[in-house]
């Protein structure tokens, strides 16, 4: 498993996790607005798992 594979999986999750939930308010796609925070969380979890918690922000 490479980091590129993981990143690709993260992006698929970011695009799909809220599908069908109707997360929209006043024309704002709330799942799209969640992308940055979700990528950050996934990255932190994965770096800790892969590299023993020493890395990341």
């Amino acid at each position: 498993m490479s980091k590129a594979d993981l990143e690709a999986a993260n992006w698929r999750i970011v695009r799909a996790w809220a599908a069908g939930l109707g997360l929209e308010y006043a024309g704002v796609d709330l799942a799209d607005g969640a992308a940055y925070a979700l990528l950050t969380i996934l990255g932190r979890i994965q770096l800790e798992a892969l590299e023993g918690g020493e890395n990341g922000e």
Partner: protein
Amino acid sequence: MASDPRPILLISGGPVTEPLWAGLAETYDLAFLYPQAAQAAGSLGLPSAALNSIADAPLAEAAQAAALKLTARVINAEDAIAAKFSAEFAALGASQLGAGVGAWLGVFAHQIISAQVGVAAQLERLAGTGRRIAGCVTHEDVSADTRALVAWCNAHGVPTIHVPHAPCHLLPGVPDIHRQTRARYIAASGPAVARFYTESGHDPNCIFITGGPQYDKMYAERPGKAEARRVLAIDHPGPVLCYMTTWGQTTSLRSDFEREFSAGWAAVLAEAQKIGAYVCVLVHWHDNRPGVEERYVQSMESAAVPGLVTKNHMLYILSASDCLIAQGPSNMCLEAAMSGVPSAYLQTEGFDYATALPYRGGPETIGAAIGQALAGGADWDGMVSQYNAVHPQGGAAENVVAMVRQLCP
């Protein structure tokens, strides 16, 4: 008869927008996403308010209720969402990465939905007052609140303008959220920045090259080398180096993070020892690891390399330095060049300046890159012009203000 009120311009309020405030306020009343920016603009006597000042208790309550209902949809679907995570990571043979989603999903959803619904509800209220919203200017549109601001405007026919807070040095073809701007128009600081957004799929007809307003201050009066060294109490016969640290941004997994930072710093320290340099360590303002400054102090003491460590006094430290060495392709290299200071940087995966300068290398070759930078003679003005089209005169803020007036009548 009372005259029509002036149009409202929505503005995020990040530091890059500050040089625009006075010019924009000649035409618009400014509604800031960031309350602290509204306070700062107000203290300058500019017609401005915080967007959230429109929210009374009933509006806040209604937005909170709407956010809770939307969050409930996520929580009710938690098992199905967790299964999506598990399936992705199991397919990679890393099932453990898909575990524990339920521990954070609800809180995450509540925070991220509340932030966006709050902004959108305030915008709905503002629109309902009958005041005309002429446009929206933001320094970024990847985080939840700014993206909600831009999304609402796009959905309601309000022109949106992104004035990027910094050039992004991603290599062509490398996917990253920073490519995904949602604003319709971009004020690119220079041709290299315009190319980045064009390569990222943005309509080139919606990209204007304006110069970077955040750099205008670099062309104002700044301390000379002698003054900067006197103020910082640097009295050293050899070269003075500035080492700019970085931080682990985990929206991507590129770089080796801490290992890479440690190897880079060790190489710079070794080179400083070799050439008898004084080192100013400028710790990145996003690096909040406890005791980080002390770690640099201790390693310099152990290596008997004189120097200082700080998160502040950037202009003075740059002016005092003979060369900047950045951990990664930092935009500090650009600001250093504007100050007449050459630079080199430690490369990291997926990023590089699009120009031949600054000099660059890995831990094994950064010493040679530092040597090249210290030798002088390179065309730093040519490099800067790619990232700041108004170099070396400055004055980008006027260009951006004119662009906003044109697009947001």
